[in-house]
């Protein structure tokens, strides 16, 4: 579904991605792991068009994403839940969700809203509340719900567990799995490697801008280097 080849991305002189290649197949959850500064966020931002690569290709459903602006990538079926959630704090929960469906005119919007409320009943209770006043967990739910309102075929998640209590992390990951089982392909960036590998089918390990390792979730979970570096052993 998504294929990335030899991706090079720079911030000015900083060479952040040095030839990243990865692939996500339809129906999968693929985990992208790596330490701080490895380039995980940069990879997602480049897919969703917020950054442009200096070299390399991104192909989505057999069509190139080269030169497609961020606001048009959504139309290609990709929704990005950015790092740090980036919900619209001054908008209400409902308005945030409306913005998720900004480009849609089909009549699937109402059913999708219901779907989001089924996944996150909390959001329904808070529908009229200004998003900035939500708790951290609720904000993460809103960020994911907002992305689902675009009815994406590919969902990019950047550290959905960041800053959440362990119980909530469990809950969010269960929901991510559920979203995947409902038919959405997922590329999941995480520092919480243990949790990510639990729900992912496959994974990649990114180290300072290059893919250092790849394999099935089980293989990565067994790998001695991964266990030492990311699973705290």
């Amino acid at each position, binding site marked *: 579904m998504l294929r990335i080849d030899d991706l090079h991305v720079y911030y000015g002189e900083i060479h952040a991605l040095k030839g990243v290649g990865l692939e996500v197949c339809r129906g999968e959850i693929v985990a992208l792991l790596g330490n701080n500064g490895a380039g995980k966020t940069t990879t997602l931002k480049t897919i*969703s068009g*917020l950054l442009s690569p200096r070299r390399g290709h991104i192909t989505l459903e057999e069509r190139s994403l080269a030169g497609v602006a961020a*606001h048009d990538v959504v139309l290609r079926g990709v929704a990005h839940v*950015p790092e740090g959630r980036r919900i619209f704090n001054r908008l209400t929960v409902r*308005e945030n969700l409306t913005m998720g469906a900004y480009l849609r005119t089909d009549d699937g919007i109402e059913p999708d809203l219901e779907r989001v409320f089924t996944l996150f009943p909390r959001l329904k209770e808070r529908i009229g509340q200004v998003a900035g006043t939500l708790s951290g967990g609720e904000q993460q739910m809103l960020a994911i719900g907002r992305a689902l309102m675009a009815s994406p075929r590919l969902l990019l998640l950047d550290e959905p567990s960041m800053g959440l209590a362990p119980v909530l992390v469990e809950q969010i990951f269960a929901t991510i799995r559920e979203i995947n089982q409902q038919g959405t392909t997922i590329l999941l960036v995480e520092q919480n490697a243990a949790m990510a590998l639990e729900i992912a089918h496959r994974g990649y390990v990114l180290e300072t801008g290059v893919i250092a390792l790849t394999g099935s979730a089980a293989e990565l979970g067994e790998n001695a280097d991964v266990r030492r570096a990311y699973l705290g052993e």
Partner: protein
Amino acid sequence: MDLPLLLGILPQVLLDGLILGFMYALIALGYTMVYGVLEFINFAHSEIFIVGAFVGVELLLGLKSAGLLDALPWPLVLVLVLVAGMAASGVLAVTVERVAYRPLRHAPRLIPLISAIGISFFLQDAIRLFESLWRNAFNLVYPTMDVLNVRFELTQTVDVSVKSLVVIVAALAMLGVLHLLVNRTKVGTAIRAVAEDQAAASLMGINVNRIISLTFLIGGAMGGAAGVLFGVQYGLINPYTGFIPGLKAFTAAVLGGIGNIPGAMLGGLVLGLLEALAASYLSLLTGGAFGAEYKDIFAFSVLIVILIFRPKGLLGEVIRGRA
């Protein structure tokens, strides 16, 4: 001191202040909406405002020389003139953003500001050049329409002219429509989303540049409407007339909390009222020591005091850094 006299004129003073305040509010919206999405002060907005006034006067003079000014129903004439002024200023604002600000979007903050000041001078002198060639004069007077000068006596001490009512009604209608647009429509929500976080907005599929253009269009149109109303209310305009109301409207926007739309409306009204109160009462209350010409000093002193205690403005919130 004659208390009954002081109180007797109060309603009239408040009415005058309200009219001035609505004018400032309309202009202030242009500053505040643009600041909301770009964190940038559009210093050329005072000229965008006065261009509206010039388009209005040209249309009225044109209708007059065609003999249509008195033939057409006056509300229709007013609507035509308002729409023309709004369209011209709106399109001008969008154009200015496109050619003079957008290419500098990622330059250091001071650069677009200087560009805006340049545009401001350019527009002043462009109007002056055009009017000098076209009419041989650049001080123009709005043609009078007799109905507009009819006055109603509300009480013995308060009366109101038709044109004042026109200003109030038109300003209220526009502020109301803007409020609904920004708060009740999807595109209005998108404007607020872009104001808060451009990158996140683009991830929603919002074309940020288009929303920025729309913001200039709306802000410019409000400024153009204010220009026409200014002309209708006060009569005389020249290419440099925009500067002082523009500066005051900018202050009103800051007073309300720059970037905050209801704040701009409130700030405009507060400033207008302060100015009117000062103009009428300063000399009475100080026994003539301070005349009405000190009204700006008074109004701005109050503003400074308000801003000392509320640095973010009356309705402002903490200004976030842009990621």
